[in-house]
């Protein structure tokens, strides 16, 4: 076992004409091992300005040790210093370190608060402008593939359909089914008190088909596929893959963004249908166990209390939500700066914004379609 390296400092002589003797290993390890006692000795030595320093006893000096001494000397070589020539070179290097030019913060004017207020607004403006540019680019892409159908990115669309559509089926089915069970169970508890058992079909049918199915699916897809899209585009930016695509003359919007939007626009309505069906089956199972309602009866009543228009509204919602989620995901994916912090921030923003947008759009559609598909009493 090697001896433990240790940095030592001894102050010798009568007060006033003392000298400091350095010895041992003035290295990172030596400093760490010396700890508090060395710090105290150094602080003590710093109180005396014209101390004579003897550094001949230093066995090993690395930059950590040299910087520690340098700081104790007040960023300059002491007038009286004995040191070995090879250590002298380290101190010379320290003296040559260029000083960081002072970066004083700009003076705070009285208008500072206006600037502070305006900054988020400016950010919001660029975000909106970018989003608009993305929309415009997609419209141009659509025009382009209409004129040149050979350029249609079929492969990418089908890959995206599989990834965000087919692969999402198990999780949406599970969540839909369980929500249906819970909703039906809670409603049944209430309805039984009034003997209004039959109305469970109305509640489940209207609630799930028109509202819950589309929104639930959109939230799941935003969390699942939206975040994946943002992360994928973001990493492609970090690794300069998007730049590589551009130099090969491949349009990033046509190859990366357009297929994602198209795929979700197709997959979402289908997923909405699938999730709603699962939720209704869940509700039916629960109604059967709670209220002894037979499946046949359930299926007979359902089409009567849920007019067909509701299904079309749900499909329209699915289509709109799909486009919204994909657009938001791609928008934030393209905003990723080449570092990991920005990647995680934008992925979070993507999911949060997508879910918020979905709920806002849902509210707007709810108002716009308030007279359609509601059974007359």
């Amino acid at each position, binding site marked *: 076992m090697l001896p433990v390296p240790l940095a030592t400092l001894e102050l010798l002589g009568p007060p006033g004409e003392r000298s400091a003797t350095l010895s041992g290993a003035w*290295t*990172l*390890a030596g*400093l*760490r091992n010396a*700890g508090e006692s060395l710090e105290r000795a150094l602080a003590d030595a710093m109180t005396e300005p014209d101390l004579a320093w003897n550094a001949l006893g230093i066995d*090993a*000096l*690395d*930059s*950590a040790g*040299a*910087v*520690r001494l*340098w*700081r104790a000397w007040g960023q300059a070589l002491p007038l009286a210093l004995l040191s070995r020539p*090879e250590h002298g*070179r*380290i101190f010379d*290097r*320290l003296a*040559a*370190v*260029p*000083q*960081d*030019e002072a970066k004083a913060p700009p003076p705070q004017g009285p208008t500072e608060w206006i600037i502070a207020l305006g900054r988020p607004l400016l950010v919001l403006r660029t975000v909106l402008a970018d989003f608009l540019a993305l929309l415009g680019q997609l419209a141009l892409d659509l025009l382009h593939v209409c004129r040149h159908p050979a350029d249609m990115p079929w492969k990418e669309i089908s890959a995206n359909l599989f990834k965000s559509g087919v692969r999402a089926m198990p999780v949406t089915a599970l969540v839909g089914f369980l929500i249906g069970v819970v909703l039906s169970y809670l409603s049944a508890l209430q309805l039984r008190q009034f003997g209004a058992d039959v109305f469970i079909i109305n509640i489940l049918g209207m609630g799930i088909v028109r509202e819950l199915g589309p929104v639930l699916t959109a939230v799941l897809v935003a969390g699942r596929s939206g975040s994946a899209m943002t992360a994928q585009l973001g990493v492609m930016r*970090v690794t300069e893959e998007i730049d590589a695509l551009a130099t090969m003359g491949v349009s990033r919007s046509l190859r990366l963004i357009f297929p994602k939007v198209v795929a979700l626009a197709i997959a979402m309505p289908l997923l909405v249908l699938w999730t709603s069906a699962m939720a209704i089956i869940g509700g039916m199972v629960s109604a059967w166990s709670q209220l002894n309602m037979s499946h046949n009866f359930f299926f007979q009543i359902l089409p009567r209390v849920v007019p067909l228009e509701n299904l079309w509204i749900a499909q329209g919602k699915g289509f709109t939500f799909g486009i919204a989620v994909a657009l938001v995901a791609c928008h934030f994916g393209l905003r990723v*700066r*080449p*570092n*990991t*912090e*920005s990647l995680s921030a934008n992925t979070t923003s993507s999911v949060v914004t997508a879910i918020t947008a979905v709920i806002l759009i849902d509210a707007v559609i709810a108002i716009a379609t308030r007279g359609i598909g509601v059974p007359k009493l």
Partner: protein
Amino acid sequence: MTAPVIDIRDLSTRFGEVWIHRHLNLQVEQGDVVALVGGSGSGKTTLLRQIIGLLHPTLGDIRLFGEPLFGGGVHREQALRRRFGVLFQHGALFSAFNVFDNVAFPLRELGCFDEAMIHDLVMLKLSMVELLPRHARLMPAELSGGMVKRVALARALALEPELLLLDEPTAGLDPDRSDSFVRLVRQLDKELGLTVVLVTHDLDTLAALESRVAVLAEQHILALGSIEEIMAVDHPFIRNFFLSDRSRRALETH
């Protein structure tokens, strides 16, 4: 008699069905500067990753400073890891930190210096790799390839390692910077008795460092010695690498 800083015995590595190394032996003594040369894809980076414990060898045994790499508790492994610094082939800077924080990171992790001391140390390291104070505020994405290498070197040097492992440190540096890199390594070697293992294809660097050369070919260390000794070995790879016209010109100028 101290143990060799790096002691690799009978190392074999397999990825899938392919053997990258077979019965590889390498000893590096304290204070040595060893350049590892070998064709692209011959497993130099893999060997380096095994030396620093990122990859378990399929067979064989690696010791650093006479100690095994693994086992003996978290603290022992951590203490061992602080004794070497690594420069990765692509820099591996933390992209969310600026240059200053990248170099300061290992010092802060150590937790025994105050911010002012860390600031001075970082500035010294940056000046050692010939970066200016204003570069300290740049983000890794804003650096040129050569600057990334130099920041990564500064970070590798932050904890005053006894052993420095460098994966293609001069690739992407201009000749001037390569020269100052060579000067820096020689200086550290002389002042602190640093042990350096570097992967390089650059004959100028090899010649200027006057290092020992380890040739990795045919899945093991084919030869280890000074450049003259290596050039005396008759082997197709060595003939190609050292005795082509281009290499001759590079070696003659030194």
